[in-house]
């Protein structure tokens, strides 16, 4: 008998514009000791399933049809009170963001003890002992001491361990983990996944992991259910789904996952989804505005970017007295070069300083020490805004978050036209507008997009707008700061393809920043590995992946999800 069984689930979100069906006709089973992965892209309805099972659907969402059984016992029609008794006691839940999942005002002990006492018939002393024990089980060092601390005193990974401990408190039979590692760095992610897997086997609980990350699926799940737009399109063992998927959606989804093992020219696109047709329209670059005037007047032939002894410091504690101030070195002594026409990658975990370097080059931060040469000119020595504008025009940046990188109050036309107007690149309003339209066309959005506002577009489309804006100054150097990490994998493939094409057409030089090693492998010619503000190793991409020199590079590569059994594209 299955531990948790979901039959013909249908979840609806009624609204004034009609009823939105988030999940329809979904049937799933979780067996003891088994990890079931539910995978899908955003909007597939996978999270609502988890919420529906524990009875915490956000209003106005409701279960319109279907049944949920726990050990053969129907639970979806229980009263609120009875459902509450199940939560935590028999079904545990782990959420995505460990930073916000814990009550900031109470100690870990209080939160644990409260939950333990609620579900188990124990004395307070026993509950406290159990709390410490749980922390030990989830791998928190020195649990006797740390149990007295507050959440903010734990790092993100440690907090997720605490969250897991809380979910395990009452030894539930089923654990539902909703994107449990998405907010974590690769190395932490690996540890948490390992922990989950271990607990699952040891305690013989059934686990449902909801994720968008094929790497996670490949690493921990036994079986996988693939969701697409509220429907279950395919279910099977992990090996089967990854290696030999039946459904065309699954096939294209898996093929769109960047491959860590070898470099491809272009990403295979997910053809199943409608927006896949939005590729760029071809444009005769040489005769177009974009292709013209690419002579920047310096005839410089050396490396376009040359970074020398770069340092960046942030003040962490201010004081009137100099000696009491303390600083955090975000970047320490970075040195590298980027040749014209090259894509240079920077890889590292969060806080490693890779974005800080990008911001220093683009002029958002002023370096504490060191020089940045752009086409032979030291940018740090430029004093007037006017002179700086000359270089600003030549380098542009694409940001990570497609939702915040466009001003929500401006029309797409104005967003893209702004750099053209500011740098005086067009002689008339009509010319500007026609250039914007061409750019939109070129990034695959179509002319009609110009009169709309950013919120009318999806994440991938917005990132195209960002790219169009970056191209609008006719730059020769493009900085991409995690341009696809907020996107679904199928969209990511489109955007990366677009960037590759543009780079080739316009001969752009790029600095490409990512935490995702497979993406780096697909995109970059040369890679720098960063940790704690230090650039540890710079190497040709293939060389790095085949033969990493630095210990940390080796470590990172080891942690990289292998997807070994994935069917070759």
């Amino acid at each position, binding site marked *: 008998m299955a531990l948790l069984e979901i039959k013909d689930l249908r979840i609806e979100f009624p609204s004034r514009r009609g009823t939105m069906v988030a999940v329809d006709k979904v049937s799933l089973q979780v067996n003891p000791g088994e990890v079931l992965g539910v995978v899908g892209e955003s909007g597939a309805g996978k999270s609502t399933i988890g919420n529906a099972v524990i009875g915490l659907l956000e209003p106005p969402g409701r279960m319109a049809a279907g049944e949920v059984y726990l050990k053969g016992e129907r639970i979806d029609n229980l009263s609120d009170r009875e459902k509450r008794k199940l939560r935590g006691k028999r079904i545990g839940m782990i959420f995505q963001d460990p930073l916000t999942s814990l009550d900031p005002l109470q100690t870990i002990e209080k939160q644990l003890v409260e939950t333990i006492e609620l579900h188990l018939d124990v004395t307070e002393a026993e509950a406290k002992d159990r709390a410490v024990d749980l922390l030990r089980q989830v791998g928190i060092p020195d649990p006797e001491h740390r149990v007295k601390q507050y959440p903010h005193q734990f790092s993100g990974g440690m907090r997720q361990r605490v969250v897991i401990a809380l979910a395990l408190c009452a030894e539930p039979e089923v654990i539902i983990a909703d994107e449990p590692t998405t907010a974590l760095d690769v190395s932490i992610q690996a540890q948490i996944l390992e922990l989950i897997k271990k607990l699952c086997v040891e305690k013989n609980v059934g686990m449902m992991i909801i994720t968008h990350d094929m790497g996670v699926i490949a690493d921990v799940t036994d079986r996988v259910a693939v969701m697409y737009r509220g429907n279950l399109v395919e279910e099977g063992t992990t090996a089967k789904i990854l290696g030999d998927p039946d459904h065309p959606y699954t096939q294209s989804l898996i093929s769109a996952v960047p491959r860590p093992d070898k470099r491809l020219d272009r990403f295979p696109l997910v053809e199943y989804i409608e927006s896949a047709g939005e590729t760029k329209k071809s444009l005769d670059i040489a005769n177009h505005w974009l292709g013209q005037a690419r002579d920047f007047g310096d005839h410089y032939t050396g490396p376009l970017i040359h970074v020398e002894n770069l340092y960046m410091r942030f003040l962490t504690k201010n004081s009137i007295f100099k000696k009491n101030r303390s600083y955090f070195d975000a970047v320490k002594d970075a040195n590298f070069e980027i040749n014209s026409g090259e894509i240079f990658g920077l890889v590292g975990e969060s806080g490693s300083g890779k974005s800080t370097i990008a*911001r220093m080059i683009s002029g*958002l931060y002023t370096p504490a020490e060191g020089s940045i040469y752009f086409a032979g000119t030291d940018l740090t020595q430029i004093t007037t*805004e006017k002179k700086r504008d000359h270089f600003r025009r030549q*380098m*542009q940046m694409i940001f990570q*978050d497609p939702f915040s*990188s466009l001003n929500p*109050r401006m029309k797409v036309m104005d967003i893209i036209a*702004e750099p053209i107007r*500011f740098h005086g690149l067009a002689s008339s309003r009509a010319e500007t507008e026609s250039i914007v339209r061409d750019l939109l066309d070129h990034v695959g959005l179509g002319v009609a997009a110009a009169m709309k506002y950013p919120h009318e577009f999806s994440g991938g489309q917005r990132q195209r707008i960002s790219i169009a804006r970056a191209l609008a100054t006719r730059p020769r150097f493009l900085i991409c700061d995690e341009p696809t990490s907020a996107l679904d994998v199928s969209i990511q493939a489109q955007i990366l393809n677009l960037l590759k094409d543009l780079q080739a057409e316009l001969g752009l030089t790029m600095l490409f920043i990512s935490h995702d090693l497979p993406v780096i492998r697909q995109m970059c010619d040369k890679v720098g590995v960063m940790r704690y503000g230090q650039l540890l190793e710079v190497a040709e991409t293939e060389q790095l992946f085949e033969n990493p020199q630095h210990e940390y590079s080796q470590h990172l590569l080891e942690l990289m999800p292998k997807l070994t059994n994935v069917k070759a594209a």
Partner: protein
Amino acid sequence: MKQALKRFFDGDLWYSFSHSPVVILSAVITLLIILSAIFAPMIAPHNPFDLASIDIMDSNLPPAWNEFDGDMRFLLGTDDQGRDILSTILYGARISLLVGFASVAFSVVLGVGLGLISGYAGGRTDTFIMRIADVQLSFPAILIALLIDGVARGIFPRDLHDELAVYVLIFAIGISGWVQYARTVRGATMVEKGKEYVQAARVIGIRPGTILFRHILPNVTGPVLVIGTIHLALAIITEATLSFLGVGVPPTTPSLGTLIRIGNDYLFSGEWWISIFPGIALILLVLAVNLLGDWLRDALNPKLR
């Protein structure tokens, strides 16, 4: 334009508006009062500000329906100078609304400006502006208004006083309100400043001033609108309160608050209509504006939808 209208009527704001009778009623009342205030000279039966037209012998007449002294010329009765209450309410609402709107506008301009600068510049500028805000906070609105009124009367020549009274009120109420806007906008600016669209603008080379006004300002107006609505109600009440303390518009051109204060003297003597009718007008106006502000707060807060 057509498209914008269509989008508006399709939007959530209009939906939540059109589905809440209380909010619609509030909007109608507010609009009615504002319109009748604007067109007071056309719709009011008398001109209470024209001294030559009022007769002391008509003073303290009860509402027209009073069987003994009611006078059909004066629907809601007259005040102690023989002014028609209805007309005076209409004209008074004009002044109350003028003071309300103008002082809110003043605080908004000052507060939003300083908030933007403070939030965007950070560092010493920020500290400096926020310390000024602290000082400002330790002078509550009423105290500021009392002091400023005193000062203005001291500084400006006498023949300007009557015209100045309204401006003094606007300035005094306005200056005490900016801190809230500044703090809110500062917070919002600090959030917006970190957003990538601002960094994109900086990478392009756009100058701070332009970034502040073209990029950040439109994105921090939501909370300003909400505070502004509630502040409008507060400003109108403050004006009324100040008139109680003897600081306010001249009695020859009374605002709603001044009228209530005048009527206050006649509450015991049974001439209730002098203060109660303007009081009702004030409650209706302020309540409607507050309800609108409430609704706007919820409707504009994406998290509460």
